[in-house]
């Protein structure tokens, strides 16, 4: 899962769970059934986990573009000037 996919998964998870909670409470309250509320919410949690927990392909649409290794060879790292105070073991 790429960076954008992780952000999307977290937002989806929170929004879907909040919707499930609100719908469950409203339906449960209007039908005066605590059991209905719990069943709707449980269904919402299962659906949300199916959508956001597995690594679905649509979470991987923004892969990171790494530079080609040859780029690093063309631009060598600047050499660190070793001072005299350095430990002798480094040499």
């Amino acid at each position: 899962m790429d960076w954008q996919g992780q952000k999307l998964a977290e937002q989806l998870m929170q929004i879907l769970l909040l919707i499930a909670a609100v719908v469950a409470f409203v339906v449960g309250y209007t039908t005066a059934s605590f059991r209905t509320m719990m069943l709707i919410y449980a269904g919402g949690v299962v659906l949300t986990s199916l959508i956001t927990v597995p690594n679905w392909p649509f979470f991987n649409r923004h892969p990171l573009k790494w530079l080609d290794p040859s780029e690093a060879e063309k631009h060598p790292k600047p050499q660190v000037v070793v001072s005299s105070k350095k430990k002798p073991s480094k040499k």
Partner: protein
Amino acid sequence: MHSFGYRANALLTFAVTALAFICAIASFSDKFSNQNPSAEIQILNINRFKKQSRGNDEVSLTLDIAADLQSLFTWNTKQIFAFVAAEYETPKNSLNQVSLWDAIIPAKENAKFRIQVSNKYRFIDQGHNLRGKEFNLTLHWHVMPKTGKMFADKIVMSGYSLPDAYR
């Protein structure tokens, strides 16, 4: 949110928090229900009234209990425990409570009832103070909600009295 386990953990935590919130709101919604319970108890007969060999007074009564507790049931109510207690004052104790009858009411349909019973639990005074005693019959109830705090209330009915002599 980088791994399966991390996402599952975050989802579970958020789901349980939201569940706690809807349960709290469900409990809070109970406060908006109108409660107007009613009760009436008559003493049909005093079956037995005697002094035990140990010196304690014992009474056996037949009660006619009519009550309507339906308005106490909301969508968040699991059951109601109701009991009838005789309450009276003696020189030694300012309040004596003796439970005479109880019942668990599991559903709203059962909450409006009228029954005639003799006392389920024995009505015994710790002493011999019951002759000619004025006492109250109190219907207590404990409402057990599915979520939230249990609460109790009562209806006090006064003006009952026992005979002046044993029989």
